[in-house]
Each structure stands twice: as structure tokens, then as C-alpha cells.
């Protein structure tokens, strides 16, 4: 009790000052403090929604430099409508939900805090119905609703800040704030490393529920995962996705466990295959 109280005090000190205390005693405790930091979520000051959006915009703007936007306006609008519809069935329907398809062959999708979601053309072309697209987008929406990236960015930022002796408080209000820029840059790098595996499993669980609530055949996400399961790990454009996510078979096992109970009652929900095929046909024939 006494020790943890001291660590809290140290953390509080870290939180409130921009200068590293020079006392030797502090240095000794720093390692301990880092370890505690992981579990001490209260040490991380929650951002306001406005700050979260500013952070997400910075990350999304960085992600935009990965590849050009797909030039097919109809497909872009279509993906936005599917995604927006699903977002309305989450607890955060009023975020500025925005979706973009990047013209890249890699198979991937990313969610930035505040409601910004990026999907690759490579991913879109692996899908067979609107329900599968809905499943993939719902998984990404779940990351944002549950603040997975936001929390990871904040906690890694807190570690960096502590290491550098900077304030742990991330104030995203001033857009030119150096700390925000650092957070955005560190946050973007995180997309190359991936989230905690538990966050991915949680997004799968939330994703199938959001798809069902939106009236889609909720087996779209597992169907997409089975497609991914059928792709070899050395296929080009699939490596990063595999490195940053749990194995498709583990994800499918979880969905099997949770959906076998009563998701059969959704068996009559549509997979909206025709609309998907019609709108993405140009893309497919262009390949």
C-alpha cells in the first residue's frame, strides 16, 4: 500500500511537471514507475472528444501519405454509406465518421481515433458482399468506439514523455503543440506494430454485433476472415496484416465460440451481394 502510494505520488509528479526532478531517489523509482504506468490508467489524463478528433485527424493525414485515394467516387461514397450506417448502431454515432479507400494492393484496414477509417483496395477486392464489407468496417469502427488506438497512443506517449522527462499530459488543443505532433507521429508508427491482440479479439466481438444490429448478415466478418485464412502468409500485401493481428484461425475460433450460441437467429438477414457486386464491378474488371 505504502509503496504504491509513493509510486502514485511519483506519477503525479511526472504528470504535473515538465522538468525531470533531479533527485537520485526519483531515478531509482523510474523503472518501477514505468511498470506501474501500464496498469495505472488513471495516470493518463483522458482526452476530450475534440482532442481525440484532432489527434485522429493528424494520424489519418499521415496514413493518407501511404497511397493515393482510389479514384472511383462511387466506391468511396458507397464505403462511406455502409460505414456510416454501422456507426449509427454504436455508442458513438456522432463522431465525424469518415471512410476512405486507398489505391493500394495491400490487404489492410486502419482506424484512427475520432472516426477516421482507411481501407485498401486490396482488402475491398478480397470481399464478396456488402455484409463482408460491413463486417470489416464494423471491426474498425469497434476499435474507435472502444478507443483502442487512442489508449495505446496515450500510454506509449506517456512512456516516451516520462522517458524524456516531459509532461505526461497530452494537450491536443493547440494543433501546433509539439507534444501533439509527437503523439501523432508515435501514434502513426504504432500502425506498423499493431495493437494488443486482445483489442483485436474485442473488435471482432463488437464488430459482429454492430453488423447484426445494422441488419446485415453478421457472418460477413468470419467469412472475410476465412478468405484471409486461405491466403498464404508469404503472399505479397498480406504480411503486415498477419504480423499485426492474431492468426485468422484464432479469431475464427473466438467467433465460433460466441456466435454459435444464438446468432443463427440472424440467418435470414441479407448479405447484400448484388449491390456490392454492382458497385465494385468496375474495380474488379479493371484488375
Amino acid at each position, binding site marked *: 500500500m505504502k509503496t504504491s502510494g509513493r509510486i502514485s505520488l511519483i506519477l503525479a509528479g511526472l504528470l504535473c511537471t515538465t522538468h525531470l526532478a533531479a533527485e537520485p531517489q526519483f531515478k531509482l523509482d523510474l523503472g518501477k514507475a514505468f511498470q506501474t504506468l501500464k496498469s495505472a490508467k488513471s495516470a493518463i489524463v483522458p482526452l476530450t472528444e475534440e482532442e481525440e478528433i484532432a489527434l485522429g485527424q*493528424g494520424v*489519418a*493525414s*499521415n496514413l*493518407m*501519405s*501511404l*497511397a*493515393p*485515394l482510389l479514384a472511383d467516387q462511387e466506391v*468511396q461514397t458507397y464505403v*462511406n*454509406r*455502409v*460505414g*456510416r*450506417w454501422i456507426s449509427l*448502431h454504436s455508442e458513438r*454515432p456522432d463522431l*465525424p465518421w*469518415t471512410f*476512405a479507400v486507398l*489505391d*493500394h*494492393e495491400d490487404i489492410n484496414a486502419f482506424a484512427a481515433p475520432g472516426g477516421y477509417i482507411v481501407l485498401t483496395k486490396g482488402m475491398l*477486392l478480397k470481399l464478396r458482399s*456488402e455484409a463482408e464489407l460491413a463486417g470489416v468496417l464494423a471491426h474498425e469502427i469497434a476499435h474507435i468506439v472502444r478507443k483502442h488506438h487512442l489508449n495505446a497512443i496515450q500510454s506509449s506517449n506517456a512512456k516516451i514523455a516520462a522517458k524524456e522527462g516531459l509532461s505526461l499530459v497530452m494537450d491536443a488543443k493547440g494543433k501546433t503543440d509539439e507534444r501533439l505532433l509527437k503523439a501523432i*507521429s508515435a501514434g*502513426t*508508427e*504504432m500502425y*506498423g506494430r499493431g495493437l494488443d491482440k486482445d483489442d483485436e479479439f474485442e473488435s471482432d*466481438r463488437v464488430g459482429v*454485433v454492430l453488423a*447484426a*444490429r445494422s*441488419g446485415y448478415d453478421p*457472418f460477413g466478418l468470419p467469412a472475410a476472415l*476465412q*478468405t484471409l*485464412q*486461405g*491466403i498464404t*502468409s508469404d503472399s*505479397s*500485401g498480406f504480411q503486415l496484416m498477419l504480423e499485426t493481428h492474431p492468426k485468422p484461425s484464432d479469431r*475464427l475460433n*473466438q467467433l465460433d*465460440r*460466441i*456466435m454459435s450460441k444464438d446468432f*443463427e437467429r*440472424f*440467418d*435470414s*438477414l*441479407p448479405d*447484400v451481394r448484388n449491390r456490392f457486386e454492382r458497385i465494385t464491378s468496375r474495380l*474488379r474488371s479493371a*484488375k
Partner: protein
Amino acid sequence: MKRQHRHFLFLCALATLSLNVSAQNADKATVARSAELKAQPFSDAATLKTLAENQKLDVLSRKASWMEVRAQDMTGWVKMLSLRFDARAESVSNSDNSAKSFLSLVKTGSSGSTTTTGAKGWSKESFANLSPNPDRFEKMKQLSSNKSDADAFAKQENLKEQEQAYLNAKGGAQ
């Protein structure tokens, strides 16, 4: 009688043809755990046979939680999550697309195209030191749909909202 016979032959030919076509387009899957092959995609449909673990089969189509499969000479429906999809080099669900995408990769390679849509995949390093692209981000923001737009879009396909609580990892309500 004769006519009936001809009709039958025609149907056989058609069936063979469609079998060939679907064999080309089929995905290969393996039975991950023993499952019942049903005549129709319903739990209370007649059971045609029990599929043994590790049996290989062709997947023809999906209907919600059911996959239409061909196991040896029998076609029926099996729960999709009792199947495992084996990794194949150019596997893709829709083999039509995979063939095309494979071809396009070859084409891109041989034409020496320098577009960013080439075969080079992203890696961890791709995300280090990315700089913002405000122009593209502005364009992205323009793509956003509003609620009423999304609502009308859902109505077009008669999507009906459902009640479903969030689930924990064990499948219980959260």
C-alpha cells in the same frame, strides 16, 4: 419415354458442366471438427451425412452461417465455422478475382509500371516518419456521409435493425 430419357441426359450434361464450372471456382476447405452435412441451410433440415474431421471439400457458396459444400459426390450445407480454409499460394475466395489479380500483378511487373499499386507490400517501416498529406485528408473528409444519407441507403436494401447485446469472450452478454 424417349423424350424423358433425353431430358435426363441433358440434365446430366448440365450438371456435369456446372460441376466443372464450380470445381474451378471452388475454394478448398477442411472440416475442422466433425459436422453434419445438411440438405438445406437450416439446423432442422435433413442430415445427409456426418463429415469427419480433416475431410477435404469444395466450398460452393455461403448463406449466412452456412456453407454450401461438395464432399466427395455429395452436395449439402455445413456450418461455416466448422470449416478451415487452407492457405494456398493464389488462393482467394473468389477464384475469378484471384486469377485476375494474379494476372494483373504479372502484367504490372512485366510492364515495369511504377505505380504505387504494385506488388510491394507495406511493412512496419512504412509507418515510420510518415508525413501528413493535408490535401488527401481534405479530400477524404469530403467523402463522409451524413445520417439521413446512410439511413436512405440502408432502406434501399431493406436492412432491418436488430437487437443484440455486446458479448464477452465466452459468448455471454456484456
